[in-house]
């Protein structure tokens, strides 16, 4: 028997890495080993992060800022230290450009709301236009629909070419115009895996003076991210997809913008001085962090960033590229399987959506689950993509630094079983 994994290069030492993730030892459905291929929905949490959270609550827990006692000072240092780590992780020019939110969705809504309440030249109103794309996650669609409804602005979008799962930018000059105030798009699609051409979109947006927000939720966990290289004005991502805890997200924004733009949520921590008649606001990032922040979660995200950095984002990207290449190749061998999205491993993320003949994704997912294989089925919060492809849903397998070629094999075998079961 020839080794089916021969020729796969750039793989990480997953045997060692998997030891860091207690959940990967779990058995489900009467002792079947868990094959976790739902990483685009949420990643698993390494021991290092879990321990950081416990230690935080066991030794340092206090409310941050302004406290003069030891715990408050230590908790503040840990919280602000996490900001330093995240700033470095995305190569932010300044730590004050890193805003902690509760998830990527809040980050995206935060920008939409700032622009709705902003003064000129940023203000989105009935004279202006908002641009998104047809492959956005609902979290990068609905906030803009709400903003458009509430301000009278016009919402426009780039269409999707179903042939290869890429954006149709042929009409970029008509879509992004002098009226455009903001262009918000996903760096790597969570449903298609498509990696979008940042430079072309950013260039056109800045040409007309529009701001650019990049949804990097599916990028930050998987590749080196450099907000300066992206040349965007805002970048959003979420902790729970990058080995961090739930309840923490990030918005990076350019300092001048954060200074100029109005606050979103009001409350403790985000103020400079308050009287009953009026208030002034703290400088960014605090201006955008109302109330007690997700302290432990930020600290946990800091630990996740340390963990990922210790392995190396370049290496993680190479590992995933090898796995994705292998997975695409093996999946295309499954009869009746149709990949929804790019069919190369170049310029794509590690989430792979597909349909399997007439078998409904719910059934595919359920029968895979019975074999211990966790995939996601549905519209993956990107229903417009399904509408465009004329399908109700897809099955999606998505990989991470601990995924192995053997798990790809298990998926392919599982799909054979699904076909026989419903055949």
């Amino acid at each position: 028997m020839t080794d089916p994994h021969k020729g796969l290069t750039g793989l990480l030492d997953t045997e060692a890495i998997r030891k860091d993730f207690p959940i990967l030892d779990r058995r489900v459905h009467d002792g079947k080993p868990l094959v976790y291929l739902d990483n685009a929905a949420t990643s698993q949490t390494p021991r290092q992060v879990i321990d950081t959270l416990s230690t935080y609550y066991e030794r340092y827990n206090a409310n941050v800022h302004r406290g003069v006692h030891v715990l408050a000072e230590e908790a503040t240092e840990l919280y602000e230290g996490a900001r330093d780590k995240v700033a470095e992780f995305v190569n932010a020019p300044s730590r004050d450009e890193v805003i902690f939110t509760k998830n990527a969705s809040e980050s995206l809504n935060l920008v939409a709301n700032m622009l709705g309440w902003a003064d000129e030249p940023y203000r989105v109103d009935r004279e202006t236009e908002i641009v998104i794309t047809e492959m956005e996650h609902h979290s990068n669609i609905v906030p803009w629909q709400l903003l458009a409804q509430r301000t009278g602005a016009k919402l426009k979008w780039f269409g999707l070419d179903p042939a290869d799962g890429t954006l149709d930018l042929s009409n970029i000059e008509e879509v992004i115009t002098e009226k455009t105030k903001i262009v918000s798009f996903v760096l790597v699609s969570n449903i298609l895996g498509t990696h979008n051409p940042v430079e072309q979109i950013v260039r056109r947006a800045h040409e007309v003076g529009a701001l650019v927000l990049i949804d990097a939720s599916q990028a930050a966990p998987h590749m080196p991210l450099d907000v300066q290289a992206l040349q965007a004005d805002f970048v959003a991502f979420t902790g729970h997809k990058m080995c961090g805890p739930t309840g923490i997200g990030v918005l990076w924004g350019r300092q001048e913008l954060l200074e100029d733009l109005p606050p979103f949520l009001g409350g403790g921590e985000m103020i400079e001085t308050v009287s009953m008649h009026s208030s002034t606001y703290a400088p960014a990032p605090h201006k955008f962090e109302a109330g007690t922040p997700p302290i432990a979660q930020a600290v946990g995200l800091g630990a996740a960033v340390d963990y990922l950095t210790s392995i190396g984002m370049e290496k993680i990207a190479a590992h995933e590229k090898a796995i994705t290449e292998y997975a695409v190749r093996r999946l295309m061998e499954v009869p009746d399987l149709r990949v929804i999205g790019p069919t190369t491993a170049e310029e794509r993320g590690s989430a792979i959506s597909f349909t399997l003949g007439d078998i409904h994704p719910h059934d595919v997912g359920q029968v895979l689950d019975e074999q211990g294989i966790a995939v996601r089925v549905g519209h993956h919060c990107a229903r417009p993509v399904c509408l465009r492809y004329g399908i109700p849903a897809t099955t999606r397998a998505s990989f991470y630094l601990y995924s192995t070629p053997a798990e790809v094999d298990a998926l392919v075998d599982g799909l054979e079983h699904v076909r026989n079961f419903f055949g």
Partner: protein
Amino acid sequence: MYQDVILDHYKHPHGRGLRPGDAEVHHVNPTCGDEITLRVRYEGSRIADVSYEGQGCSISQASASVLNDLLVGKDVEEAQRIQGTFLELMQSKGRIEPDDAMEEVLEDAVAFAGVSKYPARVKCALLSWMAWKDATAQALGDTEAPASAEPVERKTA
């Protein structure tokens, strides 16, 4: 959860296809995209036909087939009792073990007992039943108006 009975109904659905009716509804399960178009035809209070078209998972398709088996020919009151029992079973979170009495009422539909353990799938199993309930309300509400040869077409999303 995939009992043979369910797979049989899925592969060989009973009464599938749209035939004339007194009312038509279109129901969608927005979270997974399952769809059904369903018509009912009454003769007085007796269900003369339930016809349907749709796309969706095995559970939603098999459930429509079982519904057709169970309800066609029944009086509306009895059908509502059956629907109520099925609803109860599906909302039981796997806690109801169907007994003989229940099996008498639900026949093949008792095979769905296992589905009730999977919250994400309960809606699939109920899709056609909710559509039937809705269509019936429309059809019977309409009997007061002079009966028309053309089926009434209404859509509920």
